[in-house]
């Protein structure tokens, strides 16, 4: 993989992300693609901490730390301020966790994209409220253990399909991306930057601590999420044009599940059921993209 001209680092060493943190890898790739002319809006999440306690900063771009539920609203304001200054060049990006996106920040996000505010909303998805201690979110997948879905009460509800919710707003661009596929991820960020209006990126970012996985496996597991169709790579333009970016090898979802401590309690019958759900979602996506299995 040769990603030339992406040698500039806008993220610093010495941050306090956990070893093997997928969210930091995601940030690094996104900043490489966006470049220096970027303002970041950061609602409460792990990244609020990783970005550093003042006066330290692990990011070499301006960052606005903001309230948990305000990612969409704050970005709208920043965009308006830049526009008033005549700065059309600077990109505004909201960088929020799944909790801040799927749950508490959803209203502000929905409002901002309904107005088609010119910004990128990137959700790095680690599938729970990690910063506060692994509580389940509406992004936590079916079957997962969290500190609020323990023992026999593991989560028995499906993960919310956030991209479809955004697609329903008919925004110019919505896409999934994954830290194990940097070329695809960087291409999508650059594409989003070039489009005017609201852009939504759903970035899969593994979490060694919250998922109970070894730190060195965090890319492998991220890659498997795509290979198994659990997290397909696709993009949607103007709410209608679907493109699937990766046709997976025929891996079984159980390969993905058995590597992670958060799924350890699942029985074969549960995994069979999950496989069916994944197959169903994939078939639905293929249909939307006008493709056949």
């Amino acid at each position: 993989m040769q990603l030339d001209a992406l040698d500039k680092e806008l993220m610093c060493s010495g941050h306090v992300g956990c070893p093997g943190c997928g969210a930091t890898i995601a940030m690094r790739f996104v900043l490489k693609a966006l470049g220096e002319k970027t303002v970041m809006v950061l609602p409460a999440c792990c990244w609020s901490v990783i970005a550093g306690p003042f006066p330290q900063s692990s990011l070499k771009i301006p960052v606005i730390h903001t309230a948990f539920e305000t990612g969409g609203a704050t970005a709208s304001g920043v965009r308006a301020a830049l526009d008033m200054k005549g700065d059309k060049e600077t990109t505004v990006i909201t960088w929020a966790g799944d909790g801040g996106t799927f749950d508490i920040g959803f209203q502000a996000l929905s409002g901002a994209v309904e107005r088609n505010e010119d910004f990128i909303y990137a959700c790095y998805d680690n599938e729970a409220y990690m910063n506060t201690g692994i509580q389940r979110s509406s992004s936590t997948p079916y079957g997962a253990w969290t500190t609020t879905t323990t023992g026999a009460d593991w989560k028995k509800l499906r993960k919310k399909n956030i991209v479809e919710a955004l697609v329903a707003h008919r925004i110019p661009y919505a896409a999934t991306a994954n830290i194990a596929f940097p070329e695809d991820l960087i291409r999508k960020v650059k594409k989003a930057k070039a489009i005017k209006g609201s852009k939504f990126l759903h970035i899969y970012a593994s979490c060694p601590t919250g998922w109970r996985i070894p730190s060195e496996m965090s890319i492998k597991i991220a890659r498997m999420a795509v290979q198994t169709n659990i997290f397909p790579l696709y993009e949607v333009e103007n709410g209608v044009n679907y493109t699937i970016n990766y046709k997976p090898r025929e891996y079984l979802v159980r390969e993905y599940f058995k590597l992670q401590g958060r799924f350890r309690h699942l029985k074969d019958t549960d995994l069979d059921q999950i496989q069916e759900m994944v197959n169903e979602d994939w078939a639905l996506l293929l249909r939307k993209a006008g493709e056949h299995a």
Partner: protein
Amino acid sequence: METELSLKKNLYMARTSVTTESNKTGSWRFLRPKYEEKTSPCSTACPAGEDIARIEMLITQGAFKEAWETILRENPLPGVCGRVCYHPCEGRCNRREFDTSIAVHTMERFLADTAARNETKPALERLPPKGKRVAIIGSGPAGLSAAWFLNMLGYDSEIFEAMPEAGGLLRWGIPAYRLPATVLSNEVARLESQGVRIRVGEAVTASRFEELKTSYDAVFLGCGYWRNRALNIPGEPGQGVEDGMSFLRQLRQGAKPDVTGVSAVIGGGNTAIDVARSIIRLGGRAVIIYRRRREDMPAFDEEIESALEEGAELRELLAPVQIAAIGSDCILTVQQMKVEGLDRDGRGKIVTAGTSLVEISVQRVFVATGTTAVEAWHEPPPAAEAGDQHNASVHLYLSHCTLQQEQQGTPIIYGGDLTNTDKNVTQAIASGKQAAMALDTLFQSGADAVRERLSACLVGEGPSLSMEIYMNGPRKERKPHIVSYQEINTDYFQFEPRVIQPRLLIEERTSSFDEIELKISANTAMREAGRCFNCGICNNCDNCYLFCPDVCILRGRDMTERHIDYDYCKGCGLCVVECPRNAMTLGEEEKL
């Protein structure tokens, strides 16, 4: 005015240029990643120990000259070996477990042919002159290799060759359809231009050998096995009975012997197969008679397969009993054999099957059942006599050659077919290399140092040796650990079919001695080399750099020469796991 001012006052924007870099997160680490290149399985399987993982990497980059030079550091005859080496490297290629092995020999041949076409001159390291001269008897692959490597190590050498041209069996044994004379002469010319001196038409007699011992500092013997082993049955020698080696030699001298009708070829080695294939090309029919089964034949399987494709007939489990001339024909009487249990060496044990004899009527019989040394003095004294040291004399029985030094006299070293258990071209080259290393160590540090010095130059587990390691080149840094398939991160590779070797049509093959295997294009070669995992070596793919969550893979100015900033590395291990080719290692952190 007021409001504006107060607004300005109240709008406090924190500015900072302090980074997180004052947090030395390296203190979190309990596992330590490091760059550590390892050994590819193919390179240990190659008798010449070629650095195959690197060669394929260089081909992929289009650096053909560097790739060719990388071969030449370990093997002076890539044009020859790319054609006739039975490529054990491919048998151990990790890619086999993924789809199919890399066509290593095809790449080797491509590089040699490209260099020959462009008349490329290699730029290779050479040690300063040592002021010592070595006489080499025989210009087969063993002798040529010894001269090449002695030359690299700073020795003067001179090859004495009885035949009018250099090359040994490469010139006078292996037929042109597998190894054209121009390929060999090109390689020999390059060796000569690099300083190897060959005196053709100078047969060394026993007395001349004694003279050489006094006028040179050492003598290398690579005389080969040229005496045909007789069947020792009635009718041999006799009318219609010919020896296979002489027949092949005549062909390579330009003769076109008459082989009309049916010829029986007795034997199961490369010579028997090449005799049969040559007979077919001259318009005759060939029946190979072998006392064991096809799977027991010492000839390379691909060659047997080709011979059968070209129309040779194979009759297994038949042992010749007598040959009788009847008019201009021969009656070959054979005994039917069968397999019963196992031999001491694990092969099927062959015993006679009943008493019935079979008579086969043919026009002539070629005997090709093996060869031995021509003169007794060509061979080293048997190993049983002594250990390494004996009455102040040195007897070193090394994996590929034997070194002898009587009472501080001139060291004599025997190599090639004379000493190799596996008698083939690349093993002969390996023996020439080992001889050069052994002699150099003997001269520099004495006989006692030889074994240890050689074992430090093994490729992986050996027995193949690396001259680059011996000369303290960068390859010395490689760990001997052999990368297994399980250690390759195959997520970074796609299934891709192996290159299809273009070949002459069967009709073209059976009617001429033209080379069968045709050349491939540079594009094809690059694509094939691109399939290589580059097991154990860094090809600058940048995965480690990209995936580090802590931005602590630092690269040199040319974006290579990576190293890890241990001030910040948390030891997550991602770089190591995501390195596709195991060029990194994760180990315990040594706490102070």
